[in-house]
Protein backbone atom coordinates (compact mmCIF):
# COMPACT_ATOMS: atom_id res chain seq x y z
CA UNK A 1 0.00 0.00 0.00
CA UNK A 2 1.49 3.32 -1.04
CA UNK A 3 1.69 6.13 1.53
CA UNK A 4 -0.55 9.17 1.40
CA UNK A 5 1.45 12.39 1.14
CA UNK A 6 -0.12 15.53 2.57
CA UNK A 7 1.71 18.61 1.34
CA UNK A 8 1.29 21.82 3.29
CA UNK A 9 2.18 24.98 1.35
CA UNK A 10 2.52 28.11 3.46
CA UNK A 11 2.70 31.75 2.40
CA UNK A 12 4.83 32.57 5.43
CA UNK A 13 5.00 36.31 4.89
CA UNK A 14 1.23 36.60 4.51
CA UNK A 15 0.63 34.42 7.54
CA UNK A 16 2.96 36.49 9.74
CA UNK A 17 1.51 39.71 8.35
CA UNK A 18 -1.97 39.02 9.59
CA UNK A 19 -3.54 36.79 6.95
CA UNK A 20 -5.64 33.97 8.37
CA UNK A 21 -4.44 30.39 7.97
CA UNK A 22 -7.35 29.84 5.60
CA UNK A 23 -5.90 32.55 3.33
CA UNK A 24 -2.24 31.62 3.58
CA UNK A 25 -2.09 27.85 4.00
CA UNK A 26 -2.89 25.34 1.27
CA UNK A 27 -3.09 21.58 1.77
CA UNK A 28 -2.95 18.96 -0.95
CA UNK A 29 -2.77 15.19 -0.88
CA UNK A 30 -2.30 12.32 -3.29
CA UNK A 31 -4.82 9.95 -1.74
CA UNK A 32 -6.00 7.32 -4.20
CA UNK A 33 -9.28 7.00 -2.30
CA UNK A 34 -10.40 10.57 -2.98
CA UNK A 35 -10.03 13.90 -1.21
CA UNK A 36 -12.20 16.92 -0.53
CA UNK A 37 -11.34 20.61 -0.55
CA UNK A 38 -7.89 20.25 -2.08
CA UNK A 39 -5.88 23.44 -1.76
CA UNK A 40 -7.64 24.62 1.39
CA UNK A 41 -7.19 24.20 5.12
CA UNK A 42 -10.40 22.13 5.04
CA UNK A 43 -8.69 19.27 3.21
CA UNK A 44 -10.25 15.92 4.01
CA UNK A 45 -7.89 13.11 3.02
CA UNK A 46 -9.25 9.62 2.58
CA UNK A 47 -6.97 7.06 4.18
CA UNK A 48 -7.07 3.30 4.53
CA UNK A 49 -6.47 1.23 7.67
CA UNK A 50 -2.76 0.56 8.03
CA UNK A 51 -1.78 3.18 5.45
CA UNK A 52 1.22 5.44 6.10
CA UNK A 53 0.34 9.15 6.13
CA UNK A 54 3.18 11.61 5.65
CA UNK A 55 3.01 15.39 6.15
CA UNK A 56 5.55 17.78 4.65
CA UNK A 57 5.59 21.56 4.71
CA UNK A 58 6.95 23.87 2.01
CA UNK A 59 7.20 27.68 2.15
CA UNK A 60 5.86 29.39 -0.97
CA UNK A 61 8.79 31.78 -0.76
CA UNK A 62 11.49 29.13 -0.78
CA UNK A 63 13.93 31.02 1.43
CA UNK A 64 11.60 31.58 4.36
CA UNK A 65 11.56 29.08 7.19
CA UNK A 66 8.50 27.18 8.31
CA UNK A 67 8.24 23.93 10.19
CA UNK A 68 5.51 21.70 11.54
CA UNK A 69 5.91 21.88 15.29
CA UNK A 70 3.22 19.37 16.08
CA UNK A 71 0.04 17.71 14.87
CA UNK A 72 -2.82 17.12 17.31
CA UNK A 73 -5.84 14.96 16.57
CA UNK A 74 -9.29 15.28 18.01
CA UNK A 75 -10.99 18.24 19.58
CA UNK A 76 -7.90 19.67 21.26
CA UNK A 77 -8.49 23.29 22.21
CA UNK A 78 -6.41 25.79 20.19
CA UNK A 79 -4.30 26.72 23.21
CA UNK A 80 -3.47 23.14 24.11
CA UNK A 81 0.25 22.48 24.47
CA UNK A 82 1.85 21.37 21.23
CA UNK A 83 2.18 17.68 20.71
CA UNK A 84 5.98 17.70 20.75
CA UNK A 85 8.47 19.35 23.10
CA UNK A 86 11.28 21.68 21.97
CA UNK A 87 13.79 18.87 21.79
CA UNK A 88 14.60 17.71 19.14
CA UNK A 89 14.70 20.97 17.17
CA UNK A 90 11.71 21.64 14.97
CA UNK A 91 13.71 21.26 11.77
CA UNK A 92 14.48 17.64 12.54
CA UNK A 93 10.97 16.33 13.07
CA UNK A 94 9.29 14.15 10.50
CA UNK A 95 5.57 13.78 10.74
CA UNK A 96 4.34 10.43 9.51
CA UNK A 97 2.41 7.57 11.01
CA UNK A 98 0.17 4.61 10.27
CA UNK A 99 -3.60 4.79 10.22
CA UNK A 100 -4.91 2.53 13.00
CA UNK A 101 -6.57 -0.64 11.78
CA UNK A 102 -9.07 -0.82 14.65
CA UNK A 103 -10.99 2.40 14.07
CA UNK A 104 -14.48 2.37 12.62
CA UNK A 105 -14.45 3.96 9.14
CA UNK A 106 -16.61 6.86 8.05
CA UNK A 107 -16.28 9.77 10.44
CA UNK A 108 -13.59 12.35 9.73
CA UNK A 109 -10.81 12.75 12.26
CA UNK A 110 -9.99 16.45 12.37
CA UNK A 111 -6.49 17.52 13.28
CA UNK A 112 -4.65 20.71 14.05
CA UNK A 113 -1.29 21.62 12.50
CA UNK A 114 0.96 23.81 14.60
CA UNK A 115 3.34 25.76 12.40
CA UNK A 116 6.38 27.61 13.64
CA UNK A 117 8.89 29.83 11.88
CA UNK A 118 12.55 30.83 11.87
CA UNK A 119 12.69 32.46 15.29
CA UNK A 120 13.37 31.04 18.71
CA UNK A 121 10.26 31.36 20.88
CA UNK A 122 8.50 32.92 17.91
CA UNK A 123 4.84 32.69 17.11
CA UNK A 124 3.06 29.38 16.62
CA UNK A 125 0.18 29.41 14.18
CA UNK A 126 -2.49 26.78 14.59
CA UNK A 127 -4.10 25.59 11.37
CA UNK A 128 -7.54 24.16 12.08
CA UNK A 129 -9.79 22.41 9.62
CA UNK A 130 -8.03 19.50 7.89
CA UNK A 131 -9.10 15.96 8.63
CA UNK A 132 -8.40 12.34 7.82
CA UNK A 133 -11.37 10.22 6.83
CA UNK A 134 -11.01 6.48 7.20
CA UNK A 135 -12.43 4.52 4.34
CA UNK A 136 -12.85 0.73 4.23
CA UNK A 137 -10.13 -1.34 2.58
CA UNK A 138 -10.41 -1.44 -1.22
CA UNK A 139 -12.30 1.87 -1.28
CA UNK A 140 -9.42 3.32 -3.29
CA UNK A 141 -10.04 0.82 -6.06
CA UNK A 142 -13.67 1.87 -6.35
CA UNK A 143 -12.97 5.58 -6.13
CA UNK A 144 -10.24 5.73 -8.74
CA UNK A 145 -10.10 4.08 -12.14
CA UNK A 146 -10.25 0.94 -10.11
CA UNK A 147 -12.79 -0.97 -12.19
CA UNK A 148 -10.06 -2.48 -14.31
CA UNK A 149 -7.92 -3.19 -11.28
CA UNK A 150 -10.80 -5.12 -9.67
CA UNK A 151 -10.97 -7.31 -12.76
Amino acid at each position, binding site marked *: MTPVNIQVFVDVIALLSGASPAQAVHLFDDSSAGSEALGTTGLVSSVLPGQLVRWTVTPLDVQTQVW*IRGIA*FGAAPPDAPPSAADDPPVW*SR*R*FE*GYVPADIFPGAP*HPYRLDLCF*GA*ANGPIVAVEGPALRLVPPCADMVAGDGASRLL
Partner: protein
Amino acid sequence: MQNSIVLLVDVEAALADSDLADNVYLVDNTRALGSRDEGRATMVSCVAGVHNPDGSPAAEAVLNWIAYGISALPPTLPRSFNLRSHHVAHDHALLEKLAATTHPRDVAALLAAHHEEHGAFGAQRSAMPYLPVDPRSATGEFVSPDAVDYAAHLNPEIVAIRGEAVEKGVIFPALYGSPDFYTEGWYWSASVDTNKVGLHDYILDLRLLRPTRSGGAVTWAPEIHPFKVQIEVSASTMVNGFTGGPLPGVLPLAPPLPAAEGAL
Protein backbone atom coordinates in the same frame (compact mmCIF):
# COMPACT_ATOMS: atom_id res chain seq x y z
CA MET B 1 16.87 24.99 4.28
CA GLN B 2 18.35 28.07 2.66
CA ASN B 3 20.78 30.32 4.51
CA SER B 4 21.06 33.88 3.27
CA ILE B 5 24.36 35.55 4.12
CA VAL B 6 24.45 39.29 3.56
CA LEU B 7 27.69 41.29 3.52
CA LEU B 8 27.47 45.01 4.08
CA VAL B 9 30.69 46.73 3.06
CA ASP B 10 31.74 50.26 3.90
CA VAL B 11 33.42 50.69 0.53
CA GLU B 12 34.88 54.13 1.19
CA ALA B 13 36.49 53.07 4.46
CA ALA B 14 37.70 49.78 3.00
CA LEU B 15 39.43 51.64 0.18
CA ALA B 16 40.97 54.09 2.66
CA ASP B 17 42.24 51.24 4.88
CA SER B 18 43.02 48.93 1.94
CA ASP B 19 41.53 46.30 4.24
CA LEU B 20 38.10 44.79 4.75
CA ALA B 21 38.55 43.53 8.30
CA ASP B 22 36.94 46.43 10.16
CA ASN B 23 34.69 47.50 7.33
CA VAL B 24 32.46 44.52 6.72
CA TYR B 25 29.29 43.69 8.63
CA LEU B 26 27.67 40.28 8.23
CA VAL B 27 24.09 39.28 8.89
CA ASP B 28 22.18 36.14 8.09
CA ASN B 29 18.73 34.61 8.54
CA THR B 30 19.71 31.75 10.85
CA ARG B 31 20.18 33.50 14.17
CA ALA B 32 17.45 31.31 15.64
CA LEU B 33 19.37 28.22 14.58
CA GLY B 34 22.51 29.31 16.37
CA SER B 35 24.41 31.81 14.19
CA ARG B 36 26.77 33.93 16.30
CA ASP B 37 28.18 37.47 16.15
CA GLU B 38 25.41 38.80 13.92
CA GLY B 39 26.24 42.23 12.55
CA ARG B 40 29.99 41.77 12.89
CA ALA B 41 32.80 40.75 10.56
CA THR B 42 33.32 37.65 12.72
CA MET B 43 29.83 36.25 12.27
CA VAL B 44 29.56 32.46 12.19
CA SER B 45 26.58 31.17 10.22
CA CYS B 46 24.96 28.08 11.60
CA VAL B 47 23.96 25.50 8.99
CA ALA B 48 21.44 23.00 10.34
CA GLY B 49 22.42 19.53 9.25
CA VAL B 50 19.71 16.91 9.68
CA HIS B 51 20.42 13.23 9.24
CA ASN B 52 18.38 10.08 9.24
CA PRO B 53 19.23 7.51 11.93
CA ASP B 54 21.30 5.62 9.32
CA GLY B 55 23.46 8.70 8.72
CA SER B 56 22.06 9.67 5.33
CA PRO B 57 21.10 13.34 4.85
CA ALA B 58 17.47 14.08 5.71
CA ALA B 59 17.37 17.68 4.48
CA GLU B 60 19.34 19.80 2.07
CA ALA B 61 21.26 22.91 3.05
CA VAL B 62 21.95 25.78 0.66
CA LEU B 63 23.97 28.94 1.22
CA ASN B 64 23.30 32.20 -0.64
CA TRP B 65 25.56 35.24 -0.56
CA ILE B 66 24.89 38.82 -1.47
CA ALA B 67 27.16 41.83 -0.98
CA TYR B 68 26.02 45.42 -0.66
CA GLY B 69 27.85 48.70 -0.38
CA ILE B 70 26.45 50.62 2.58
CA SER B 71 26.19 53.80 0.50
CA ALA B 72 24.99 52.06 -2.63
CA LEU B 73 21.63 52.52 -4.27
CA PRO B 74 18.92 50.81 -2.22
CA PRO B 75 18.32 47.38 -3.68
CA THR B 76 14.60 48.04 -3.93
CA LEU B 77 15.23 50.35 -6.90
CA PRO B 78 16.38 49.06 -10.23
CA ARG B 79 19.42 51.23 -10.74
CA SER B 80 18.51 52.32 -14.23
CA PHE B 81 14.82 52.90 -13.55
CA ASN B 82 14.83 56.66 -14.10
CA LEU B 83 17.10 56.35 -17.06
CA ARG B 84 15.32 53.47 -18.72
CA SER B 85 14.81 55.49 -21.89
CA HIS B 86 18.27 57.07 -21.69
CA HIS B 87 19.85 55.18 -24.57
CA VAL B 88 16.71 55.10 -26.64
CA ALA B 89 16.68 58.91 -26.43
CA HIS B 90 20.23 59.12 -27.81
CA ASP B 91 19.33 56.79 -30.63
CA HIS B 92 16.17 58.78 -31.44
CA ALA B 93 18.20 61.98 -31.54
CA LEU B 94 20.61 60.36 -33.98
CA LEU B 95 17.76 59.13 -36.19
CA GLU B 96 16.28 62.64 -36.32
CA LYS B 97 19.64 64.10 -37.35
CA LEU B 98 20.09 61.41 -39.98
CA ALA B 99 16.61 62.04 -41.39
CA ALA B 100 17.47 65.71 -41.84
CA THR B 101 20.73 64.91 -43.64
CA THR B 102 21.06 64.87 -47.39
CA HIS B 103 24.74 64.28 -48.06
CA PRO B 104 26.39 60.87 -47.50
CA ARG B 105 29.46 62.55 -46.05
CA ASP B 106 27.34 64.12 -43.29
CA VAL B 107 25.80 60.73 -42.49
CA ALA B 108 29.25 59.25 -41.94
CA ALA B 109 30.24 62.19 -39.75
CA LEU B 110 27.06 61.94 -37.65
CA LEU B 111 27.53 58.21 -37.10
CA ALA B 112 31.17 58.68 -36.15
CA ALA B 113 30.31 61.46 -33.69
CA HIS B 114 27.53 59.41 -32.14
CA HIS B 115 29.79 56.40 -31.87
CA GLU B 116 32.47 58.40 -30.15
CA GLU B 117 30.04 59.89 -27.64
CA HIS B 118 27.62 57.05 -26.97
CA GLY B 119 29.07 53.89 -28.47
CA ALA B 120 27.49 51.72 -31.13
CA PHE B 121 23.97 52.60 -32.23
CA GLY B 122 21.28 50.74 -30.27
CA ALA B 123 23.63 49.34 -27.64
CA GLN B 124 23.68 49.89 -23.88
CA ARG B 125 27.16 50.32 -22.57
CA SER B 126 29.34 52.26 -20.22
CA ALA B 127 32.32 54.18 -21.44
CA MET B 128 34.01 53.20 -18.18
CA PRO B 129 35.19 49.62 -17.86
CA TYR B 130 33.70 47.81 -14.82
CA LEU B 131 31.16 50.55 -14.14
CA PRO B 132 27.41 50.19 -14.44
CA VAL B 133 25.77 51.96 -17.34
CA ASP B 134 23.90 54.48 -15.25
CA PRO B 135 25.84 55.27 -12.10
CA ARG B 136 23.54 56.64 -9.43
CA SER B 137 23.98 57.62 -5.82
CA ALA B 138 22.11 56.18 -2.84
CA THR B 139 19.58 58.98 -3.23
CA GLY B 140 19.05 58.04 -6.85
CA GLU B 141 20.88 60.99 -8.37
CA PHE B 142 23.06 60.62 -11.40
CA VAL B 143 26.76 60.57 -10.55
CA SER B 144 29.45 61.29 -13.09
CA PRO B 145 31.81 58.33 -13.49
CA ASP B 146 34.56 60.93 -13.29
CA ALA B 147 33.67 61.74 -9.68
CA VAL B 148 36.04 60.06 -7.25
CA ASP B 149 33.38 59.97 -4.50
CA TYR B 150 31.36 57.70 -6.76
CA ALA B 151 33.39 54.79 -5.30
CA ALA B 152 31.17 54.60 -2.24
CA HIS B 153 28.08 54.17 -4.38
CA LEU B 154 29.25 51.00 -6.07
CA ASN B 155 28.35 47.63 -4.65
CA PRO B 156 31.29 45.36 -3.90
CA GLU B 157 31.24 42.27 -6.01
CA ILE B 158 31.99 38.69 -4.93
CA VAL B 159 34.29 37.32 -7.61
CA ALA B 160 35.30 34.01 -6.02
CA ILE B 161 34.54 31.74 -3.06
CA ARG B 162 37.41 29.47 -2.07
CA GLY B 163 39.39 28.26 0.91
CA GLU B 164 39.36 25.33 3.29
CA ALA B 165 35.62 24.64 3.21
CA VAL B 166 35.71 24.47 -0.58
CA GLU B 167 38.88 22.37 -0.75
CA LYS B 168 37.53 19.88 1.79
CA GLY B 169 34.20 19.53 -0.01
CA VAL B 170 32.10 21.11 2.71
CA ILE B 171 30.55 23.70 0.41
CA PHE B 172 30.16 23.62 -3.37
CA PRO B 173 29.85 27.24 -4.48
CA ALA B 174 28.92 28.39 -7.97
CA LEU B 175 27.88 31.58 -9.69
CA TYR B 176 24.30 31.44 -10.94
CA GLY B 177 22.31 33.66 -13.27
CA SER B 178 19.63 35.78 -11.67
CA PRO B 179 16.92 38.08 -13.03
CA ASP B 180 17.64 40.57 -10.25
CA PHE B 181 18.95 43.95 -11.35
CA TYR B 182 20.68 44.76 -8.10
CA THR B 183 23.00 41.76 -8.29
CA GLU B 184 23.97 42.67 -11.85
CA GLY B 185 22.31 39.47 -13.01
CA TRP B 186 24.40 37.06 -10.95
CA TYR B 187 24.51 35.57 -7.49
CA TRP B 188 26.62 33.11 -5.55
CA SER B 189 25.09 30.03 -4.05
CA ALA B 190 26.41 26.76 -2.65
CA SER B 191 25.13 23.42 -1.49
CA VAL B 192 26.53 22.08 1.77
CA ASP B 193 27.66 18.57 2.66
CA THR B 194 26.11 18.49 6.12
CA ASN B 195 28.03 15.32 7.02
CA LYS B 196 31.07 17.58 7.52
CA VAL B 197 29.97 18.67 10.96
CA GLY B 198 31.86 21.46 12.73
CA LEU B 199 33.46 24.85 12.13
CA HIS B 200 34.80 25.61 8.65
CA ASP B 201 36.55 28.60 7.07
CA TYR B 202 36.10 29.89 3.58
CA ILE B 203 37.32 32.98 1.76
CA LEU B 204 35.22 35.45 -0.19
CA ASP B 205 37.13 37.46 -2.76
CA LEU B 206 35.48 40.86 -2.97
CA ARG B 207 36.21 43.25 -5.77
CA LEU B 208 36.19 46.95 -5.02
CA LEU B 209 36.85 49.68 -7.56
CA ARG B 210 39.36 52.38 -6.66
CA PRO B 211 39.14 55.63 -8.58
CA THR B 212 42.39 57.50 -9.14
CA ARG B 213 42.59 60.91 -10.73
CA SER B 214 45.64 61.57 -12.81
CA GLY B 215 45.66 64.75 -14.83
CA GLY B 216 42.09 65.21 -16.07
CA ALA B 217 41.20 61.51 -16.27
CA VAL B 218 39.86 59.14 -13.63
CA THR B 219 40.97 55.53 -13.74
CA TRP B 220 38.93 52.85 -11.99
CA ALA B 221 41.26 50.08 -10.86
CA PRO B 222 39.74 46.81 -9.64
CA GLU B 223 41.14 45.53 -6.34
CA ILE B 224 40.50 42.05 -5.00
CA HIS B 225 40.24 41.84 -1.21
CA PRO B 226 40.04 38.38 0.39
CA PHE B 227 37.77 38.08 3.41
CA LYS B 228 37.54 35.07 5.73
CA VAL B 229 34.12 33.87 6.87
CA GLN B 230 33.06 30.88 8.96
CA ILE B 231 30.16 28.48 8.96
CA GLU B 232 29.34 25.94 11.61
CA VAL B 233 27.55 22.82 10.44
CA SER B 234 25.45 21.36 13.23
CA ALA B 235 24.04 17.87 13.36
CA SER B 236 20.74 16.59 14.57
CA THR B 237 18.99 13.30 13.96
CA MET B 238 15.60 13.24 12.32
CA VAL B 239 12.98 11.88 14.69
CA ASN B 240 9.33 11.11 14.23
CA GLY B 241 7.22 14.02 15.43
CA PHE B 242 4.54 11.75 16.88
CA THR B 243 6.59 9.02 18.55
CA GLY B 244 9.76 10.95 19.41
CA GLY B 245 11.73 7.95 18.16
CA PRO B 246 13.28 7.05 14.82
CA LEU B 247 10.31 5.10 13.45
CA PRO B 248 6.72 6.06 12.70
CA GLY B 249 4.01 4.53 14.89
CA VAL B 250 0.25 4.37 14.75
CA LEU B 251 -1.28 7.84 14.43
CA PRO B 252 -2.80 9.07 17.72
CA LEU B 253 -6.35 9.35 16.39
CA ALA B 254 -9.29 9.53 18.80
CA PRO B 255 -10.05 6.12 20.38
CA PRO B 256 -12.90 3.98 18.98
CA LEU B 257 -16.38 5.06 20.00
CA PRO B 258 -17.89 3.09 22.92
CA ALA B 259 -20.97 2.36 20.78
CA ALA B 260 -18.80 0.62 18.21
CA GLU B 261 -17.33 -1.55 20.95
CA GLY B 262 -20.77 -2.65 22.10
CA ALA B 263 -21.93 -3.37 18.57
CA LEU B 264 -19.00 -5.68 17.99
